[in-house]
């Protein structure tokens, strides 16, 4: 597609439930990133995928968070046993390192844990 697509745009879940957030990056972009942005805060890096290399998971805040990227394209971020502090906007971005045109972000998924 023309941009990075994320779904759902909004998700309300009960504490303790699992959630899956989806990101469909720009076709041909080899790099995919997940960030988290809490209300009024900056962007917090979560995980990075580059081609077929092992992902950089150094930003994942706990083992309840995991992500995968299938076929070098679509990525899914999974949060297990959600907690209220997981409430935030989860942003996905993709890039082509050769283009120097920066990251293209999706509009994010607003997750609310009640």
């Amino acid at each position, binding site marked *: 597609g023309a941009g990075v697509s994320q779904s759902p745009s909004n998700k309300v879940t009960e504490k303790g439930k699992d959630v899956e957030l989806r990101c469909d990056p720009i076709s041909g972009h080899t790099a995919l990133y997940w960030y988290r942005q809490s209300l009024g805060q900056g962007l917090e890096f979560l995980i990075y995928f580059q081609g077929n290399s092992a992902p*950089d998971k150094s930003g994942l805040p706990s083992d309840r968070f995991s992500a995968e990227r299938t076929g070098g394209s679509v990525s899914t971020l999974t949060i297990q046993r959600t907690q209220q502090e997981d409430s935030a906007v989860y*942003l996905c971005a993709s890039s082509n390192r050769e283009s120097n045109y920066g990251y293209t972000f999706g509009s994010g998924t607003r997750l609310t844990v009640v």
Partner: protein
Amino acid sequence: SQKIEQNSEALNIQEGKTATLTCNYTNYSPAYLQWYRQDPGRGPVFLLLIRENEKEKRKERLKVTFDTTLKQSLFHITASQPADSATYLCAPDSGSARQLTFGSGTQLTVLP
């Protein structure tokens, strides 16, 4: 540890004036520096990338400078308009294929 500081949390200016936003970084040696704009409820949008060997870069009403000695980048919006109101983020970029770390941003409001 690496640190990115953007000037004041909020900046208010009158329409038509030049807005100047500051990005200072420590314990980085970036090959590039990127600037993004973020509107409420949206993801950041890439604006400009400046390389370490470029002192200045322009795009329409935007101008970015990059001083690797001062470890600082300045972002200017000339002839500012209310539509320029947004949060602006800087991100030093090492140039390796790793993730960017973003500054916390400066919220700019252009008053009509």
